[in-house]
C-alpha cells in the first residue's frame, strides 16, 4: 500500500496502481481518450497528463504507477494548458464534420473540447485528409479515418478482448490511422466492439448510419436475447423503431463488449415478417382473425380434448411468462406434459442440471474465470457464447492461469488456451473417464482413448493441470445435451476434484436466452418451479411427439419455439405435428412450425415487454419495454393470461409481470434473494458483478445421474466425416435469420471441415459442396477451419434452407456424412 497526495488529498492505494486510478479513487476526474481499464495501457493520447511535484515534465497518468509519497497535481495551469494543447493538435487534422457525424452528441472529443479545449483554433493550414468518403470495412462497420485521434482502443480491444486481431495502425506520424490491413474488408467476428470503444466517430455502425442523433434516442435497459450469456444492452429507439443496441461501460458482466448478434441483431424486432395479428386455419389456409376469435377457436377445439397437451419453449420468453405458462398448463389445463426444447436429449436435462450444480445456486462467470484452471468442454464457446469467450481471454491474458479447451472443432479461444484437446464428437464421456483415470494415477483405458480420439499424454496433461490447481472452473456446454453420454463422467470429475479439496465452480454454457430460467420456472415434465420434483411426471418432448404420432395426444401449445426446425429428428416432429387435432403456436414469426399450426398467436420480442430473464450463470436481470409489439401482437404474458381466462375459469385475465415475479420469489424460494438493483444504472453498487442477482440454491437436490449410453456413429463406414451441429456464430435459433443485418453477415448455410481434410479432398473454402448422409443430403458452402479435428464436419442448426436435423434420426446417435464437390 502506498500513500500519495493528489491535489492535496491524501489517498492510500495498492502498489502499482496507476495515478489515474488513484485519482479516481480520490474522486478526482482526469480526462482520457486512450485509457480503458481492461485494456493494456499505451499512453498514446496524452490527454491524461498530470504534474508530479519534483518532475520537470508532465507525465501520462494512465501508464504511470504511483510511488509512495508522490504529490500529484491534476489541475495546475501547466496541466490545463497542456490539455488544451493536446486537444488543439487533435483538432488540427480532425475533420470537424460533426453535423454529419453519427457520434456527434456523445463524442468524447466534443465533450473534452467543450470542457478543456481551446475554443479557438490557430491552424490555418489545410487539414490532412485520409480519404474523401467513408469506407466500408465490413457489412456492419463503416470507417472515417479523418476523425481518428489515434487512441488505438479499437486495435487493442480487437486484439485483447475479441481476439480477432484484424485491426492495426497504418501509416506514420499524422498519417497514422487505425484500420484494417490495407484498408481491406475485415474478416472477423463483426462484433463491433471497435465501434463501441471509439471515442470519436471513426468507427461507426453501418446499419445505424444516419438514422438518428444520440439525443433523439430513447433507451431501455435490456438483456440480449440471443444466447444465455446475459449481456446487458441498452436498446434505443427513435419514433417507436429500435435503431441501436449498445453496451454500457461498467454495466453487466459484458462491460461494454457485445458480439455481432447482440449489437446488430436487434432489428428482427422491426422485421416486416413479424406476425401482427392472430391467424386461424380456415379451409386449409391461415387467415387473420381477432384475438377473441382466436381464443374462441382454441376453446372450441380444446373442449373435446382431454388434458393431454404439451408446452415447449426456449427463446425470448421471460421468467414471468414461463412461470405463468407452466401454471397455465398444470393448473388451468391440468396437463402435466410440459417441456422445453433443450437441444436434442430432453431426458438428460435433469442429469445435466445436477451435474452442473445448477440446483446449488448461481455461479458468477467472473468467479469462474478467476480460477486457476478453466476447463471448457462440450461447448463452442467462441461461437455460442462469444462474450464468455471474451471474458476468458481477457482474464487469462492478465492472470497466471490455465485454460483447457476440449472440443472437436477449432475455435477462437484456442489461441488463449494453454492446452487444446481435439476429441471426436460425442465422446466427452470417454475423454473425461480417461482424465479421471489419469487423475487417480492409473493409465487411461485405451478403449476410451480410442473412442475419444486422443492420446494418453493429452489426458494426463489435463489431469495434471486439474490436479495442480487450487480452484477449477468447469464450463460445460450444450453438447452434453445433444449427446448426453458424458454427463455421468462430468458429475464424477467434479466430485473427484471436490474430493481432492479443490474449489470447483461449474458454469453451464447454454445457447438459448433464458434456458436456465425456463428450467428454474419448472418447464420440465418432472420438475416444478425451483427444481421441486413433481409427484407425477408428465411426458417429455420425445414421448409427447410419440404420443402425437400414435394419436393419443391431440393438442400441442408451442410458445416461442420452432419445434420442427430445432427438434433432433425432423421426421418424427413433422409427422407428429401433422397428426395433431389442435396445434397452437405463439411466436413472433411465421416459422415452419407455425405454418403447420391451427392457431397462430403473435407474441412480442424481448424489447417489447417488461420482466426478468435468467442467464446461464443463474443471474436474474430485468428487461424493460422499449417499444410496443407491432399491430395486434401482445406481450406473451398477456396472451397466456387471456387464453387461460378464456378456456379455464378462475385464471386471472391480466397480471402484472411484477406481481408474477413476486409470486416467483415466494413460490420458488431460489429467487427470493434476487436483487434487481443490479439493473439500475444509477445504482451505486453497480459493478461488473453483482452476486445478489444470482439465484439461490434449491431446497432439494436433484440426484438423478443416469448413465446415458453412448451411441455409435450411424451411417456407412465409407462416409469419412462425423457430423456435429451447433449454432452459427451470427445466428442463434431461427430468429436471427429475420434480422436483416445478421442475415447480411451470413445468409447461406455452411459446412465446416478441418484444413487437413479439405486438402485431402482437394476442396477450398467458399466452394459449394454436397453433404450426403444416410438420411438426407444437401448442398451448401464449404468453410475450412484450421485446427478442427480430422474427420469432423460441422453444420449449423440455424439455417432454414438446410436443416441439420434432417440428417439425424432419433436413437441413431451421431451420423457419418460424405462431402463431395457439387
Amino acid at each position, binding site marked *: 500500500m502506498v500513500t500519495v497526495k493528489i491535489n492535496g488529498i491524501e489517498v492510500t492505494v495498492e502498489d502499482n496502481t496507476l495515478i489515474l486510478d488513484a485519482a479516481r479513487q480520490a474522486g478526482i476526474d482526469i480526462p482520457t481518450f486512450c485509457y480503458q481499464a481492461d485494456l493494456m495501457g499505451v499512453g498514446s493520447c496524452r490527454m491524461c497528463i498530470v504534474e508530479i511535484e519534483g518532475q520537470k515534465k508532465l507525465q501520462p497518468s494512465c501508464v504511470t504507477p504511483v510511488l509512495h509519497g508522490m504529490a500529484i497535481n491534476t489541475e495546475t495551469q501547466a496541466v490545463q494548458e497542456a490539455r488544451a494543447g493536446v486537444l488543439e493538435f487533435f483538432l488540427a487534422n480532425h475533420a470537424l464534420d*460533426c*453535423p*454529419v457525424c453519427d457520434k456527434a452528441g456523445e463524442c468524447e472529443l466534443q465533450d473534452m473540447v467543450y470542457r478543456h479545449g481551446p475554443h479557438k483554433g490557430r491552424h490555418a493550414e489545410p487539414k490532412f485528409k485520409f480519404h474523401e468518403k467513408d469506407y466500408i470495412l465490413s457489412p456492419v462497420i463503416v470507417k472515417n479515418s479523418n476523425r481518428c485521434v489515434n487512441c488505438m482502443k479499437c486495435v487493442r480491444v480487437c486484439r485483447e478482448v475479441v481476439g480477432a486481431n484484424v485491426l492495426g495502425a497504418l501509416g506514420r506520424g499524422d498519417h497514422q490511422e487505425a484500420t484494417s490491413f490495407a484498408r481491406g474488408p475485415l474478416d472477423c467476428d463483426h462484433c463491433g466492439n471497435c465501434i463501441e470503444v471509439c471515442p470519436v466517430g471513426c468507427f461507426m455502425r453501418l446499419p445505424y448510419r*444516419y438514422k*438518428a442523433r444520440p439525443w*433523439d434516442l430513447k433507451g431501455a435497459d435490456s438483456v440480449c436475447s440471443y444466447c444465455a450469456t446475459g449481456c446487458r444492452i441498452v436498446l434505443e429507439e427513435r419514433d417507436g423503431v429500435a435503431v441501436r443496441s449498445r453496451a454500457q461501460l461498467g454495466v453487466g458482466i459484458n462491460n461494454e463488449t457485445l458480439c455481432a448478434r447482440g449489437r446488430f441483431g436487434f432489428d428482427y424486432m422491426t422485421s416486416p415478417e413479424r406476425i401482427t395479428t392472430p391467424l386461424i386455419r380456415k379451409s386449409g389456409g391461415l387467415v387473420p382473425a381477432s384475438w377473441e376469435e382466436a381464443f374462441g377457436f382454441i376453446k372450441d377445439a380444446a373442449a373435446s380434448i382431454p388434458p393431454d397437451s404439451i408446452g415447449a419453449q426456449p427463446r425470448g420468453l421471460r421468467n414471468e411468462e414461463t412461470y405463468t405458462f407452466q401454471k397455465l398448463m398444470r393448473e388451468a389445463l391440468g396437463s402435466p406434459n410440459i417441456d422445453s426444447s433443450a437441444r436434442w436429449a430432453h431426458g438428460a436435462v435433469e442429469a445435466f442440471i445436477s451435474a452442473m450444480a445448477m440446483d446449488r445456486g448461481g455461479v458468477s462467470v467472473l468467479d469462474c474465470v478467476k480460477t486457476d484452471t478453466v476447463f471448457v468442454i462440450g461447448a463452442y464457446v467462441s461461437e455460442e457464447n462469444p462474450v464468455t469467450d471474451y471474458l476468458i481471454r481477457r482474464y487469462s491474458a492478465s492472470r497466471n492461469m490455465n485454460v483447457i479447451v476440449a472440443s472437436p472443432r477449432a475455435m477462437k479461444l484456442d489461441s488463449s488456451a494453454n492446452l487444446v484437446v481435439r476429441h471426436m464428437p460425442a465422446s466427452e464421456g470417454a475423454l473425461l473417464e480417461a482424465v479421471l483415470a489419469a487423475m487417480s494415477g492409473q493409465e487411461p483405458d485405451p478403449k476410451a482413448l480410442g473412442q475419444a480420439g486422443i492420446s494418453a499424454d493429452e489426458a494426463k496433461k489435463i489431469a495434471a493441470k486439474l490436479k495442480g490447481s487450487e480452484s477449477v472452473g468447469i464450463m460445460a456446454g450444450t453438447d452434453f445435451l445433444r449427446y448426453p453420454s458424458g454427463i455421468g463422467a462430468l458429475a464424477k470429475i467434479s466430485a473427484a476434484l471436490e474430493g481432492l479439496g479443490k474449489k470447483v465452480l461449474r458454469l453451464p454454457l447454454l445457447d438459448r436466452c433464458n434456458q436456465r430460467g425456463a428450467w428454474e420456472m419448472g418447464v420440465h415434465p418432472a420438475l416444478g418451479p425451483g427444481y421441486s420434483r413433481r409427484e407425477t411426471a408428465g411426458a417429455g418432448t420425445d414421448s409427447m411427439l410419440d404420443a402425437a404420432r400414435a394419436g393419443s395426444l391431440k393438442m400441442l401449445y408451442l410458445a416461442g419455439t420452432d419445434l420442427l426446425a430445432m427438434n433432433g429428428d425432423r421426421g418424427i416432429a413433422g409427422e407428429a405435428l401433422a397428426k395433431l387435432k389442435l396445434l397452437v403456436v405463439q411466436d413472433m414469426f411465421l416459422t415452419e412450425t407455425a405454418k403447420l399450426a391451427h392457431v397462430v398467436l403473435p407474441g412480442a420480442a424481448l424489447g417489447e415487454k417488461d420482466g426478468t430473464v435468467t442467464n446461464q450463470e443463474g443471474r436474474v436481470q430485468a428487461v424493460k419495454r422499449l417499444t410496443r409489439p407491432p399491430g395486434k401482437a401482445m406481450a406473451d404474458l398477456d396472451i397466456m393470461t387471456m387464453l387461460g381466462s378464456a378456456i379455464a375459469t378462475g385464471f386471472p385475465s391480466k397480471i402484472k409481470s411484477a406481481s408474477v415475479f413476486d409470486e416467483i420469489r415466494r413460490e420458488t424460494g431460489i429467487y427470493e434473494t434476487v436483487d434487481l438493483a443490479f439493473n439500475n444504472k444509477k445504482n451505486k453498487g453497480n459493478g461488473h458483478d453483482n452476486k445478489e442477482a444470482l439465484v439461490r440454491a434449491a431446497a432439494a437436490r436433484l440426484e438423478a445421474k443416469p448413465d446415458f449410453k453412448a451411441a455409435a456413429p450411424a451411417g456407412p463406414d465409407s462416409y469419412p466425416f462425423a457430423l456435429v451441429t451447433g449454432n452459427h456464430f451470427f445466428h442463434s435459433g431461427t430468429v436471427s435469420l429475420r434480422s436483416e443485418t445478421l442475415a447480411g453477415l451470413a445468409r447461406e448455410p455452411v459446412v465446416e471441415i478441418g484444413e487437413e481434410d479439405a486438402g485431402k479432398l482437394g476442396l477450398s473454402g467458399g466452394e459449394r459442396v454436397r453433404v450426403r448422409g444416410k438420411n438426407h443430403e444437401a448442398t451448401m458452402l464449404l468453410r475450412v477451419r484450421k485446427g478442427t479435428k480430422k474427420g469432423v464436419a460441422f453444420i449449423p442448426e440455424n439455417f432454414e434452407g438446410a436443416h441439420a436435423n434432417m440428417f439425424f434420426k432419433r436413437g441413431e446417435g451421431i451420423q457419418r456424412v460424405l462431402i463431395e464437390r457439387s
Partner: protein
Amino acid sequence: MSKGPSRIAEFIKKALFLDFVKGLSITLKYNVSRSITLKYPDEEKWVPDRRFRGQHTLNKDENGRELCVACELCVKVCPTKCITVIPMEDDTGRGIADRVAKVWKVELARCMFCGYCEDACPTRAVRLGRDYELACLDLSCTTREKDELLKPQSIPDTIQGGFVVRSSFERTPEGIRVVPDLRMQKKRNI
C-alpha cells in the same frame, strides 16, 4: 406663495378646458390627415426587409445541391419542437454531404418564428424567409414538407425589401393569392 400665479393660471386653463382643446385639436389634425393604412391585399403589399422572419426556406448551394446535412440541430434547438428531420444516406450528389434529409418538415402552426433554427444551422441551409401569407382554409398548410421548402420563395433574395409594391389579389380554385408586382417599389415610412 410663489406658486400663486401659476395656480391661478392652472385654474384658468382648467376652466377654459385648454387641455381638452389641445387634445381635440390633435385628433382633429389626424382626422383630416392622410391615413397610413396599406391597401393590402387589394392594391399594395409590404415587402419585408431581409431580416424578416417568415416561412422557412431551405437553401441550395450554387451547384444546386441541398445544403442541409440533416444534422437535426434545428430540431434540437427548436423551442416549440415544430421541426422534424429524418436523415438518410444518399451519395448521389444531391446534397453537399452524403447525409441528406429524408424528411424535413416544419409545423407552422406551432412555429413561433424565433429563428433559432437559422442560428443553429451549421451549413446555413435553413433560413426564415419572407413569405408571410400562411393562412389557408384547412389544416393542410400548417405543415410544410421539404419539397415545398426547397422551392424559391415569392420574393427573390436579390431584392432588399423594406418597401411597398403594387399587388393584385387573385382568387383561384386553389385558394386566394396576393401577387406582388416587384417592379414598382415605393418607400413608405412605417
